[in-house]
């Protein structure tokens, strides 16, 4: 008996059994308690409510929606709105973050100083406050539609949002699209051919410029032959508001701006530390071999910096996606504000809505991680 008590294997086994038992009891208690409370309040559990009509309007819908549509459709609309703001934010934050990160290491003291100032400002102000700043202090302070700020006679900024021209496909649409497709395919083929030729003869080919020429030239030619691909529907002031065009709601603009600028500051730091992690000796070896500054950055520094940058960059993408739920505070109809907020209030199906919302964020986050891990593995170094 005593010997059993001091046998590490038996002790480990006993600890595991006790832990599982404790977790099981706790889960059981929660389930029991919930079921009991639901029955007392007469709330039916289950996902049946998703087929009921929603009966309320939504500020921004990327797909058609009427008040008679179901809660299931509201869920999809919230999801799309979240994905829209996350995708826009990730693109802007990445571009800006890399520029500022490289800027922090610039030779030019002014660029270096401005980049540092940017990072320290945006990194150290809470994201919710930044959303409020752009929404209440900037966009809500815009004039009424009649006194809109006008740019180029086609863009109008007022308290209701940013009005931009809407493209409507015209007779040249299909030919131009085709031309763009052909340009893309031939640019791809050209870069393969240029690489082969360089391997064979050593002659470099100005692939970048040729690709640019193809991508601009072919669609332009198609446009000249077949006519414009789009006619533009301009926003026009009628009465008290604009008609036509596309409107970017102040909620969307504020949220995208705040998330991009906030996250870009973190990405800039990630990029800077990644570049600085490449040992000085690597650059010296590249200099001694006669590589130009651009070749050094592209062939030696960035490939090695990327393996340091990618894992924290992934976290930043996940943070941005999850932070987009802060849009609820200014009424942006994202998944949390719309589904876990309005729908929950209307139906009282707290468990189902929260569980669905959590599952969606988990799914989005895991997808981002999966893509980034794959990229990371491709960039990893071989050791031993």
């Amino acid at each position, binding site marked *: 008996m005593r010997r059993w008590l001091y046998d590490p294997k038996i002790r480990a086994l006993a600890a595991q059994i006790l832990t599982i038992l404790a977790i099981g009891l706790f889960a059981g208690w929660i389930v029991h308690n919930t079921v009991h409370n639901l029955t007392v309040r007469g709330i039916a559990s289950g996902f049946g409510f998703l087929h009921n009509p929603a009966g309320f309007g939504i500020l921004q819908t990327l797909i058609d929606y009427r008040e008679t549509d179901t809660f299931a459709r509201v869920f999809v609309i919230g999801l799309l709105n979240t994905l829209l703001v996350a995708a826009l934010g990730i693109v802007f934050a990445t571009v800006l973050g890399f520029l500022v990160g490289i800027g922090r290491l610039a030779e030019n003291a002014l660029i270096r100083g401005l980049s540092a100032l940017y990072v320290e400002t945006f990194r150290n102000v809470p994201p919710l406050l930044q959303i409020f700043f752009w929404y209440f202090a900037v966009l809500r302070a815009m004039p009424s539609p009649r006194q809109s700020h006008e740019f180029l006679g086609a863009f109008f900024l007022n308290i209701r949002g940013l009005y931009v021209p809407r493209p409507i496909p015209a007779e040249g649409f299909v030919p131009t699209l085709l031309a763009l497709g052909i340009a893309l395919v031939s640019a791809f083929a050209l870069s393969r051919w240029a690489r082969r030729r*360089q391997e*064979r*003869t*050593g002659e470099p080919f100005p692939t970048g410029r040729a690709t640019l020429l193809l991508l601009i030239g072919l669609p332009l030619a198609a446009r000249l032959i077949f006519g414009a691909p789009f006619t533009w529907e301009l926003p026009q002031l009628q009465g008290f508001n604009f008609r036509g065009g596309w409107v970017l709601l102040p909620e969307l603009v504020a949220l995208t701006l705040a998330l991009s600028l906030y996250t870009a500051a973190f990405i800039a730091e990630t990029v800077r530390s990644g570049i600085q992690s490449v040992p000085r*000796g690597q650059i010296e*070896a590249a200099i*001694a071999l006669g*590589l130009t500054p651009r070749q050094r950055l592209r062939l030696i520094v960035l490939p090695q910096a990327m393996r340091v940058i990618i894992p924290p960059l992934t976290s930043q993408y996940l943070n941005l996606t999850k932070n987009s739920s802060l849009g609820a505070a200014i009424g942006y109809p994202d998944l949390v504000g719309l589904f876990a907020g309005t729908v929950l209030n209307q139906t009282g199906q707290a468990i189902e809505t929260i569980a669905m919302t959590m599952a969606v964020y988990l799914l989005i986050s895991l997808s981002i991680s999966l893509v980034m891990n794959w990229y990371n593995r491709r960039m990893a170094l071989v050791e031993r």
Partner: protein
Amino acid sequence: MELMEETLTRLESHKTQEVMILMEHVNKWYHDFHVLKDIDLTVMAGERIVICGPSGSGKSTLIRCINRLEAHQRGRIVVDGIELTEDVKAIDAIRREVGMVFQHFNLFPHLTVLENCTLAPIWVKKMPKKEAEALALQYLQRVRIADQAHKYPGQLSGGQQQRVAIARALCMKPKIMLFDEPTSALDPEMVKEVLDTMIELAAEGMTMLCVTHEMGFARTVADRVIFMDRGEIVEQAPPEEFFLHPKEERTRRFLGQILHH
């Protein structure tokens, strides 16, 4: 001290009358620290020079000025007839003539051994990839490491990595090779394989400047040994004279320290 008694077979000298490197009154400061003080040095084509001296004496800085890893602030440096100025074209031309091997190898860890060697020929010399690979394999063969061509640097020992670094520099067919303490970061059992490779290179008539404390190597290979201290060239002489009859007190003290440990 056994080195002194050993009768080492000296390599035949390849020194010619053609000037390869000319340094006149070269001065350099790091802020107010005077690293190089009025350096005058002429290196002939085919000449092999070993530079030694205590740490901080400016010996690494001296050879790093030759391919402009460091810029000198006063004086003149002419390499193979090209003067080193701010002119980027001149700097590029000189870097193509000068190969360098570092203390910590500095191989590119994200590229294979072969890719390390073909990188500069392809991108700097615009050589076809096939040709660059053939050339690289030929040099990897010479440093006896061709069988590792498709491994990554992280998979090799220190001695192997340093031999790859030598092959990588040779692939640019330089006229001058600079070695900055090439064996200082190696485990003792790997020093010999690297020194052997360098001795072979010397036997082929390469102009070499080598910062090292391997005095056996200096005796076998060097045409001239240079002793530096506090940014100055204190003494320079052929190895037998340098080791047996050093003129300066500072040289004697330094030799006493490194040969009697």
